[in-house]
């Protein structure tokens, strides 16, 4: 196994072009586990840790441009206001030590359905900045996940950053695991209210071959909120609407039975999390901030 250590982004792109099988490594959260388990013996490891800019972020008018290696602990500490859903998701990642090393770029690169960041990115709306020696392109997050642990990157491309829409309303994130910390998701759910466009977006983790949005649930809820005038009245959402939203969210799952949980439990839990996160965000939208976020 050769260990490539580019000193700059340009060198990294060149190395990736020369060795398309090279596996990029930053925090190592996924890559090191795979190597330790002998699931994978890449010919080349491409160490991105010398490239300082990958750990930087910029807050713009519309978006946050988040460097691929910005550690989760920084997102929790510094981007809570702009990216509340992702900040909550970050808090569920592994242990403090790993949150100090791991970043969203790795989650996207691995594209595991269980990656903690994905539901938050899907709900907020995001684009992945992918680059190769051939140039840069922006991949909408909805088109990024192409299969189990597969993504839309070309073999010579690296993830430089992800552009995430700044929150224009309350966001929530819930994850079910069978222990109270440091656990891989059995399933997860992200929800963001977008009052500017009067829409709701969602993201489901670990309950389908890829991270997915619950599109039918979103469409139903968008129509119901519009029809009932809820965005203006800010009244409590009718329980039957919340229940139908939850049912449709559960229906968006295409889960499997595995060692971490059963398919039917995953469907059930996604429904519960959909109802609860909708309740929390809507309470917050109504001006009652008390239960906006878990005070984690």
């Amino acid at each position: 196994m050769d260990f490539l250590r580019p000193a700059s982004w340009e060198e990294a792109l060149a190395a990736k072009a020369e060795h398309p099988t090279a596996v990029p490594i930053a925090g190592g959260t996924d890559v090191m586990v795979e190597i330790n388990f002998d699931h994978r013996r890449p010919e080349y490891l491409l160490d991105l840790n010398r490239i300082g800019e990958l750990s930087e972020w910029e807050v713009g008018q519309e978006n946050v441009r988040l460097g691929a290696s910005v550690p989760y602990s920084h997102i929790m500490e510094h981007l809570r206001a702009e990216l509340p859903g992702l900040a909550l998701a970050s808090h569920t990642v592994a242990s403090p030590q790993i949150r100090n090393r791991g970043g969203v770029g790795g989650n996207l690169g691995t594209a595991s359905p269980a990656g903690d960041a994905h539901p938050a990115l899907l709900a907020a709306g995001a684009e992945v900045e992918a680059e190769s020696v051939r140039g840069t392109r922006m991949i909408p997050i909805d088109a990024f996940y192409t299969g189990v642990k597969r993504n839309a990157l070309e073999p010579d491309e690296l993830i430089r950053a992800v552009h995430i829409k700044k929150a224009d309303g309350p966001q929530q994130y819930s994850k079910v695991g069978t222990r109270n910390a440091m656990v891989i998701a059995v399933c997860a759910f992200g929800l963001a209210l977008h009052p500017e466009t009067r829409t709701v977006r969602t993201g489901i983790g670990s309950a389908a071959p890829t991270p997915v949005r619950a599109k039918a649930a979103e469409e139903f809820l968008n129509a119901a909120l519009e029809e009932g005038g809820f965005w203006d009245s800010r009244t409590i959402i009718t329980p039957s609407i919340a229940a139908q939203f939850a049912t449709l969210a559960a229906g968006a799952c295409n889960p499997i039975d595995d060692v971490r949980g059963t398919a039917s439990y995953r469907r059930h839990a996604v429904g519960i999390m959909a109802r609860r996160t909708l309740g929390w965000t809507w309470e917050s939208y109504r001006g009652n901030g008390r239960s906006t976020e878990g005070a984690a």
Partner: protein
Amino acid sequence: MGVTGSPTNIHQGTRTRGGIGESTLRPDGILKVTGEFAYSSDMWHEDMLWGHTLRSTVAHAEIVSIDTSEALATPGVHAVLTYDDLPTSVKNYGLEIQDTPVLAHGKARHHGEPVALVAADHPETARRAAAKIRIDYRELPVITDEASATAPDAILVHEGRSDHHAGHVPHPNIVHRQPIVRGDADAAAARADVIVSGEYVFGMQDQAFLGPESGLAVPAEDGGVDLYVATQWLHSDLRQIAPVLGLPEDKVRMTLSGVGGAFGGREDLSMQIHACLLALRTGKPVKIVYNRFESFFGHVHRHPAKLWYEHGATRDGKLTHMKCRIVLDGGAYASASPAVVGNASSLSVGPYVIDDVDIEAIALYTNNPPCGAMRGFGAVQACFAYEAQMDKLAAELGMDPVEFRQLNAMEQGTLLPTGQVVDSPAPVAELLRRVKARPLPPERQWEVAGEQADVRALPGGLSNTTHGEGVVRGIGYAVGLKNVGFSEGFDDYSTARVRMEIVGGEPVVTVHTAMAEVGQGGVTVHAQIARTELGVAQVTIHPADTQVGSAGSTSASRQTYVTGGAVKHSCEAVREKVLEIGRRKFGTYHPAWATAELLLEDGKVVTDGGEVLADLADVLEDEAVDIELEWRHRPTEAFDLRTGQGNGHVQYSFAAHRAVVEVDTELGLVKVIELACAQDVGKALNPLSVEGQIQGGTTQGLGVAVMEEIIVDPKTAKVRNPSFTDYLIPTILDTPTIPVDVLELADDHAPYGLRGIGEAPTLSSTPAVLAAIRNATGLELNRTPVRPEHLTGT
């Protein structure tokens, strides 16, 4: 050239008296917290090779052929060994039944069984070479449960059994069977006003010690081998290793190196023989370190069990009878299964008075992972079931579950189903009273005035799944019965060598035993005992090795009792000898030498009236007193194979728990808020260590209540979650407040009146948590660990 990093020398010098009853600090505590302690995996030797074990990828198969040629041809490889390379006719080992091949021969009986060994100059080279070994397996149907094991046409896991249990078991795929019959359970059942029964399932728990199996074997010039290893019982290892190597025991010199936890998982051999074989074959030191994945295959687990129980009671709440059948899955090799059967059956009644019982416990041979010793050893599975039964009975009778238990609680003088009388304090009712009397933790602790919900206090924790929705509190109680020490007639002795000499004008004591310090704190306690007995502040604990007699196993909650007893015994002999020297030298100068009761205190010989007669420095001068003695507790008896009668156990140990849980009833997630424990310890030799043992045992019991389980595929008998990614153990956020209430009611038969403590809390913690979850949800929950699916019916 020598071994670096191990063993860690422990000098426990202190200005304080530091005798028994004080919370002296662990000599290895700071080293472990700061990461400086040398564990067995940290050892290094110049010119050493790395050993690697190739393991079976299937659970049950004939091994048609093994081709090692390509592996042997790999540059950097020094040796590749298979069964055919074993040097003597002794090719098996085992704790009680020698049924475990050093390397698989003809047949692989479980997933992960060692088949071949490689030694190479780099661990990665060894791993890659092992991958080039070609094994042709012809797969066989897997035996995974009682039905498949005892079917008329069942394949025998071990053909041609000749062990001492073979003659009395009903089927060759049953390792051992122990019935216990006392009174007339059927007749007593007729007197019962209520009868409850239930079938219970206990999942396979792993010891999950943090230091993986590892050791270093160094070939010696005399043809022998020096083995540095993390284990629980050096002499038991030695007895199994030497015959396979074809060496006399004195040519296999073992030294304990830093042990990162054990919990029963190091009672069986892992890499010991393998490393020695490779070292003797190559003439070079060989180190083997398992990684976490391999560790899940490298040691036995807690027996998963199916338990059927029936209890009856009269309307006024007195137990009438109990019938039970306990089926333990021993997996492919016997390991400690026979003794676990003995425990499960003899402790199946729990800490209750029941005169009429009909009990049967068996352990199966299957193709599942081998199971053996783990903290609680057969008593854990039974406690989970009988405590569920007690709650069912109390509910049926409309009684308070604690009062019902107290009404039937065993006490000193109670006759057990084995016919053994409990002849030391058994404060079962009092322990329950104490945990119940504690104030309950406040309700809804996640609510912080004017703030967001503190999710750390809620089920789901940082995963932010509830802010109070669906959360219901539950409270549950349990109490357990555990034996201390090795039972059923085993000669459960220990040995201690104690030396007193004068160094730099000060008396110094060295305590040398073969006790495996696995984290339990024996090294702390031995120094305390020596200070108390010999009045000397400076005590050195010699590294544990086989140059001294056996200390027995660090298991069965026995080391403070038995090796502590041996240290006390040898100290007493040293004291007598010192006084004898004193009398010889100074007896004529002071009549008290002949007439008074003499003590050793603060480095001096004093009368019981406090008069100083001499400094130890003057008594001993350049003479050293050095005594090695064995010590035994009261003998036990075997259980009768038909009736189960016999004084089988040394001592009993009791703990009670109250669990308070919050359950998210919609998502099926659990947060244990508090696990209060009360335990009788006889005498707390080191109160801080006692509290640590109780908290650790409690947490290990919590783990198997809500998350810890090795999942074995019933179709293939392969392990599905051999990693800490999917075998979950409690984090600190899963660990509740554990208030501990310690009773000290002396057992007059034991040194200082102490009672073995390490296991009892592991028993009652699990059923208390389950009872609390049942209380919160109203669900029956006959299985542990309980999973979200069970709580949500999905």
